[in-house]
């Protein structure tokens, strides 16, 4: 089972990317997390460039990675009480056309972390709302890490690892439930 992990932060030392790497390390047997590394290459959404069969390469790579994954795990920071533009922009590309979105019916969970005291919960909630509009099977299971610079100063602790394992396991269960429904 393949889960595509997407960090909404491009920063090399991103706390959200660190959470996703930790989630990959605690994933149950048979579940592989692949960290997507092409978010920065996705150009600003422009309907003039959204030509079926001739989309920008980075967009095709992003949509292909979503399509090939069984589930998606996003971890997002919060910029100005909302979703980082780079993440929202990529999801906007993935939403077109709506009924063919590569995340349609696909289980997705959203984590968040921020250096503030609320851990990016508004960005996570809005990301879930956007994913719902794309037709994703959005899970309520989540982990939000406030004051991430302090909490993660010594790395991801055992409590967080357990919480991340719970979210990844919920994603895996949702993938299995979807497969069972299709059988």
């Amino acid at each position, binding site marked *: 089972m393949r889960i595509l992990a997407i960090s909404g932060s491009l920063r090399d030392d991103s706390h959200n990317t660190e959470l996703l790497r930790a989630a990959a390390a605690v994933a149950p047997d048979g579940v592989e997390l692949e960290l997507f590394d092409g978010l920065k290459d996705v150009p600003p959404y422009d309907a003039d460039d959204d030509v079926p069969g001739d989309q920008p390469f980075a967009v095709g790579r992003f949509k292909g990675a979503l399509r090939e994954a069984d589930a998606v795990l996003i971890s997002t920071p919060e910029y100005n009480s909302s979703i980082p533009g780079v993440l929202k922009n990529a999801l906007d590309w993935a939403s077109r056309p*709506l*009924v063919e979105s590569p995340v*349609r*019916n696909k289980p997705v969970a959203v984590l968040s972390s921020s250096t503030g005291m609320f851990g990016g919960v508004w960005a996570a909630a809005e990301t879930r*709302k956007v994913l*719902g*509009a794309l*037709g*994703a*099977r*959005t899970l309520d299971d989540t982990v939000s890490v406030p004051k991430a610079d302090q909490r993660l100063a010594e790395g991801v602790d055992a409590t967080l690892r357990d919480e991340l394992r719970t979210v990844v396991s919920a994603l895996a269960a949702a993938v299995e*439930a*979807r497969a069972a*429904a*299709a059988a």
Partner: protein
Amino acid sequence: MSTTEQSTSIPTGTWQHDPVHSSISFAVKHSTVMTFNGGFGDWEATLADGRLEGSANVSGVRVDDENLVGHLQTPDFFDAEQFPQLRFVSSSIERDGDRIAIAGELTIKGATQPVELSGTVSGPITDGYGKERLGLDLQAVVNRHDFGVSWNADLPGGGAVLADEVTVGANLALTQADAG
């Protein structure tokens, strides 16, 4: 004092819906002031020996917006992939003249809840082609959260886009199935 004799019985035999003259629908208050209407185009209903059963395919949901049709089929709403069908099965039918009350169970998105449909019944009559016809015009108000259909969004001025209560309706033109 005069009295008018009224039928209080439910016709026996098997009656099937005539899709051209029947419809099933839903209506929900939108943006606090409007009523949004939709329906289903791929469904069936049968009244057989006093028991009404019906089902609708979520893939046949009908509203006048292609993107909204797509959204209604996702997990935000009906979740067509996991729960492709809506279903109603009656447990009792009470007729009093032209009024009818049908109790039963409605299943939406995998959740089954008791529902009482009420409305009017007309006929049976013999139509112009010699077919026996029966008309049922039914409605019930349900709380969509009871079925896990809980999408909503805040309005900029306060309040929510969608109301909790949804009126579901069925206008059934039933024709008696040929015997044998």
